[in-house]
């Protein structure tokens, strides 16, 4: 099961990171977004090719007011 931002997500292992972003209704070209899978950054250039491993823990982060 894929965990997206701490919750189970309707995405299968093997799908690319970009599938997660589509699932969330995000524009993959939007600025201020970054993705980590199992504690490692997935660079933007790999969003279409990086396949989610089994039981991946995915964090999708965005710009927020702070500091």
């Amino acid at each position, binding site marked *: 099961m894929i965990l997206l*931002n*701490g919750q189970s997500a309707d995405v299968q292992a093997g799908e690319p990171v970009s599938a997660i972003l589509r*699932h*969330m*209704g*995000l*524009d993959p070209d*939007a*600025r*201020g*977004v*970054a*993705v*980590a899978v199992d*504690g*490692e*950054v997935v*660079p*933007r250039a790999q969003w279409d090719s990086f396949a989610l491993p089994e039981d991946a823990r995915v*964090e*999708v*982060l*965005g*710009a*927020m*007011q*702070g*500091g």
Partner: protein
Amino acid sequence: MDELASMQLTAAAGPVAAEGDTLTIAGRTMRSRLVLGSGGFPSLELLSEAVAASGCELVTVALRRVLAGGEPKAGGSLVDVLSAAGVGVLPNTAGCRTARDAMLTARLAREAFATDWIKLEVIGDEDTLLPDAAELLRAAEELIDEGFVVLPYTTDDPVLARRLADVGCAAVMPLGSPIGSGMGVCNPYNIALLREAVDVPVVLDAGVGTASDAALAMELGCDGVMVASAIARARDPARMAAAMRAAVDAGRLARAAGRIPRRRYATPSTPDEGLADFG
């Protein structure tokens, strides 16, 4: 209408610092010595007004989980507002409790905002939000090795500041007092010592409550001041942003002008010579 309320922001925010006085951090030269924190503003519109009134060229942003269809809206709106204002984005690692989390957040921020700059925060205490010195130094060292421009949020300890500068931090950001406390510069002696201890720019961060706190930081020799809550949570954020701008300029000028020494007793400013004798 009272006189203060009718004062034009532009008048209060007029340039008073010497022309050509700039702050350079890691090769980036800025005319403004004020860094604005974007946190705590009730709306993006108020943030935008404060950015304009402050004259700042660098604004911090945080990274948080994106909720599907919710906030933050894919980072778009905040980034768009800052981009439209023409200011640089300084991502932070706010909320990180370990060097590991702070380093990962920094790498994600580099990806999200296409900048190597990171305001490094590693928090070591829940109540005071004071930095964890050991984790901070470790994270700073590793991130610098990875090519980051690191601006660490640190304590007012001159020795730690020197260690951070020695490992290659582009500037140091000592606290005046705890984040959001509004207590100003609690230990001005340490801030002055810290300024002497390092060769990199010193940007006072955290604790500023009102304009005089920012002026004091500059008078103590700081190269810049970062303000977040004091502007964002002021009754009128844009007006407070203008006040901070003027205060940073005033403090900078006073520092350059050289203050008189403190004395315990009066020194007359009018000479006794020629004093009339009324019998």
